[in-house]
């Protein structure tokens, strides 16, 4: 059993982790234009400061034995009514520290990259303020020691995401996308809200340690309900089926935002929530199965959408959905999968951030063009971007020894430990990943130039390429480092549990089969998009391609099922309110008004109404008194 220790030594700085970027955001927002020149640097400094503290905490934690790595810092009593007692308290353990490191380290790189990427944006200061707000909220999300405080971080990242998707809000599409993301996430929030209520009613507490300690005493039906509600929340935040429709539109935001929020960190919060609540899912088989199903559906949806999009960011967004699908899928497998869900989350966080920043670097050199049909042959012009992108590419499709190979392979292996059919499905999806990523690389870096006339591609400045290089190194070595040097599964085990069961076939068989399928997918992609010319106008495509270009009709379905009925009924209700409810009142009033006119023609409106009301009142009074007498 893990001990819970008070936050001492370096851990007493736990609150500072969050306070630093929060203070940065506050200064930049309240300071206004005065902070324009130095604000962005302050923003970077606060995040780097948090990253340094986080690394020190990691070292301190590694020095402790495995069962003494959970520290809790009670900052103050936050919400307390009767038996509902919730502290503003932070919890650092093996699970939260890996998130803190991912958020602050990848965050710091993306902040630095943004200096270059947003160099000419007049609202650069605001951009950094929002990014700071995001980092603070995300850290609160993963450090909260209870569900209610987690909710604050959860919504805080949602707000930051809203602000940053709509950052270029002169574009109506950006403003609409921001609102859509927030409203769809609110559907997930209903899940989280009700889950927290049910947790409190069941366990009398919303603190993780209290809840997980009592799971054995609750009945399975309740736990299943909690698990499904948390899954709804996770589906919203992590763009999983059926709440996936917002992520593709979210690409309206600046590319560093897509990298940090909509690929590496925020969208993986759903996976965190499920892994954190592992005790609940372990005891609620049906809910865990639902998690697997949602993950599996999304793996394929995302991959199919990613295969059809010509917009490089949207294709990557589809890929993100699909990869997070893998994580959710793994988390649903239970103790055989949690550690690998987090493992894949970490490697994906690094390589997908690299891919997005690489895409941003390409766009930077292509006048912000995103259409891959207008790219081609960029490998010679943007050498560093090309090489670093290739590292990310090899990582995501899972070629050894790149980082994604290790984490995805473990997930596929875990799937076979459970059931060969879902394992085969996971392999098939890996093949599609091989296809769409090869397609992306081929259309962007290989083949012939298809640039528009006024485009003069060039490599990006060092402030952008250096983060790319660091992320590429991470994409290459991080998987091995975490697995062989960090022993990630045993590191996480005390928090999320880990077990391994034998598979029907030896492990190497799955590895080889997966690799073969991935390479077949890649070859199909290569033959179609590198060996043949890519037409500038997209061909009509088959039924599936056309559907995938429309995000598999996610928006159309939402519109028909939810949006239109809502607005129609709202309009009907407005008419009803004006005509019927208010109409009745007005009718009564005018009736009364006529009556009173006859009574006192000479009086002003005010006195007339008042007098009449007095008459009415006197009658009512009389009736009331009589009734009182009678009783």
């Amino acid at each position: 059993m893990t001990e819970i220790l008070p936050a001492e030594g370096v851990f007493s700085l736990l609150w500072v982790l969050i306070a630093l970027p929060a203070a940065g955001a506050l200064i930049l927002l309240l300071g206004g234009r005065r902070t324009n020149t130095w604000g962005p640097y302050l923003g970077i400094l606060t995040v780097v400061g948090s990253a340094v503290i986080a690394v020190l905490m990691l070292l301190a934690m590694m020095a402790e034995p495995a069962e003494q790595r959970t520290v809790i810092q009670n900052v103050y009593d936050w919400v307390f009514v009767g038996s509902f007692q919730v502290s503003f308290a932070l919890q650092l353990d093996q699970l939260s520290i890996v998130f803190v490191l991912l958020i602050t380290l990848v965050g710091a790189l993306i902040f630095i990259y943004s200096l270059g990427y947003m160099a000419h944006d007049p609202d650069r200061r605001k951009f950094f303020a929002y990014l700071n707000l995001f980092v603070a909220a995300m850290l609160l999300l993963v450090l909260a020691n209870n569900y209610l405080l987690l909710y604050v971080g959860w919504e805080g990242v949602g707000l930051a995401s809203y602000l940053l998707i709509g950052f270029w809000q002169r574009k109506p599409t950006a403003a609409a996308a921001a609102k859509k993301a927030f409203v769809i996430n609110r559907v997930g929030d209903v899940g989280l809200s009700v889950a927290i209520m049910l947790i409190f009613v069941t366990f009398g507490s919303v603190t993780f340690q209290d809840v997980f300690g009592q799971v054995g005493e609750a009945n399975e039906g309740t736990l299943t309900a909690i698990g499904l509600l948390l899954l709804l929340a996770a589906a919203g935040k992590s763009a999983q089926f059926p709440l996936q429709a917002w992520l593709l539109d979210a690409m309206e935001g600046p590319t560093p935002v897509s990298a940090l929020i909509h690929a590496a960190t925020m969208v993986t919060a759903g996976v965190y929530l499920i892994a954190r609540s592992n005790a609940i899912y372990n005891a609620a088989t049906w809910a865990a199965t639902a998690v697997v199903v949602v993950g599996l559906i999304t793996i394929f949806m995302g991959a199919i959408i990613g295969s059809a999009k010509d917009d490089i960011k949207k294709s990557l967004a589809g890929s993100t959905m699909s990869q997070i699908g893998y994580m959710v899928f793994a988390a649903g497998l239970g103790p055989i999968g949690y550690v690998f869900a987090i493992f894949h989350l970490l490697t994906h966080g690094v390589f997908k951030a690299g891919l997005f920043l690489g895409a941003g670097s390409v766009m930077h050199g292509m006048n912000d063009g995103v259409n891959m049909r207008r790219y081609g042959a960029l490998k010679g012009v943007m050498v560093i971007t090309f090489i670093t992108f290739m590292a990310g590419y090899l990582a995501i499709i899972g070629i050894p020894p790149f980082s994604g190979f290790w984490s995805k392979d473990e997930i596929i292996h875990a799937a076979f430990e459970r059931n060969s059919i879902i394992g085969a499905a996971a392999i098939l999806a890996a093949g599609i990943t091989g296809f769409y990523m090869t397609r992306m690389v081929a259309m962007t870096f290989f083949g012939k130039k298809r640039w528009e006339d006024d485009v003069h591609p060039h490599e990006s400045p060092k402030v952008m390429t250096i983060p790319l290089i660091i992320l590429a190194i991470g994409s290459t070595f991080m998987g091995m480092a975490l697995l062989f040097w960090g022993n990630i599964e045993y590191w996480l085990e005390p928090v999320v549990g880990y077990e391994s069961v034998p598979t029907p076939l030896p492990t190497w068989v799955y590895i080889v089969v997966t690799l073969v399928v991935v390479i077949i997918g890649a070859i199909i992609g290569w033959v179609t998009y590198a060996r043949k010319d890519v037409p500038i106008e997209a061909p009509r495509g088959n039924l599936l391609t056309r559907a995938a270009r429309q995000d598999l009709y996610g928006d159309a379905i939402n519109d028909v099922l939810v949006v239109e009925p809502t607005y129609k009924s709202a309009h009907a209700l407005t008419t009803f309110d004006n005509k019927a409810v208010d109409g009745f009142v007005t009718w009564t009033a005018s009736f009364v008004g006529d009556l009173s006119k006859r009574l006192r023609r000479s009086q002003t409106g005010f006195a007339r109404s008042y007098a009449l009301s007095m008459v009415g009142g006197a009658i009512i009074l009389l009736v009331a008194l009589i009734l009182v007498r009678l009783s």
Partner: protein
Amino acid sequence: MTDFPWLTAIGVVPLIGSLVVALLPKSKPMLAKQIAMIVSLVVLGMTIAMALQFDGKSTEPFQFVESYPWIPAFGVNYSVGVDGIGLVLIALAATLVPVTILAGWRDIEGDQESEGSVKGYFALVLVLEALMIGVFAATDVFLFYVFFEVMLVPVYFMIGRYGGPQRSYAAIKFLLYSLLGGLFMLAALVGLYVVSIRQLGSGTFDFLALVGMDIDPNTQKMLFLGFFFAFAIKAPLWPFHTWLPDAAAESKPGTSVLLIGVLDKVGTFGMIRYLLPIFPAASEFYAPVVIGMALIGIFYGAYIALTAKDMKRLFAYSSMSHFGFITLGIFVFTSIGQTGSVVYMVAHGLSTAALFLTAGFLMSRRRESALISDYGGVNKVAPVLAGFFLVAVLSSLALPGMVSFIGEFLVLLGAFERYIWVGALATLGIVITAAYALRLYQKSMTGPLNPSLEADGNTITDLKGREITALMPIAALTVVLGFYPAPLLNVIEPAVDRTLEIVQVDAPDSGLSLDGLSSEGSEQ
């Protein structure tokens, strides 16, 4: 505890201030504003001084108690005192009055359509402040009723003299509705008096004495309706809400803030202070109906806000939806729900103020148009204004981290504790709330700049020092209390618990799902 008559003093200062303002010559509008501002700040200072002396752990039902005979023949006393609920609402009123005075600094002058004078408006605001403090402080039901009714007069003139083109229609509608509700209450009040004569020998309006009575349930049910009707119009609950959109649309922003932000809270305050303790059996009897009305109100208001074309009407319908939440929390009879309701009252006061004032600043730059379609892309030319508007919008959709979230979540949790499905259903309201609130922000503040805003004479300038000074305290309180609600919770919960003790409804079973435990789930 000192013997200083804090509550009377806090009520009398604005009254004297209003007299002084009213007696000034019309030629000195600036002096009138300055005096009003200073008086309201003095009141705020006194309120803070009083609040600091309030003892959250006291077992006395009321603190700062004063009582003098007023009409001895009828057992009417001038009795005042506050519990935690009254205290936070007085503090809310004392905070919002200086804010609205500052925000409305330029609203009256140069307004050709207004009939009234500058000093008149500010004198009315101060009179209203005195009455608001009185209504929350009264511990004699008759005194409460007097404040409740007299309050209509300054509001009537504030809408009817200083409002928009349809102001007299709106003012009359407001007055008729309120008077009707007030008359029902008067009837019930007389009935209550008769009951008190029978039970106690001599008639009384003293709140604590009335609470101590054991009224026959059928009588309770009748008298309950009289009070409830008045409160449901004031709050306003569906279907008694139709005066609110008109009043909000025709009022000056400052008037709306005081009307919806503070005054309407008298309705929900009345429910928790008077209805529940005096008529416990009736409250329990009617609870399902009231909860039904509250639920309808939550969704009805939110749905209509979704289609609103006029900002002020949107705020009115959104308030209606929020009053649904507040009422729901009161009538589920749980400590969590009722504490949530009172926190929500404060939060709603703050968010209403932020919305109306920011929108008011915006409209003052666009010939007072409240049509959402007249705006768009304002963020581009007035980022500070848009920033405050966003805070107001987020506060109104109860974003976690804001005080409205604490209120809303506690209400929902309190409802959930009592009736799981009611709580779960009401939670769906947060989706529609987000949809209308963000739709408003999107249509008015983001996107390309509305071409008509670039036309001559319509240029939107950003907020100035005075306007920022008015909004800053509200925005700061919204966030600070969201992260640190202890000052509210410390005083509200004991008052709520006392109410629930009187009502004597059993607390919901804690850990109800733990019944019939199965050990199957514990294999790990």
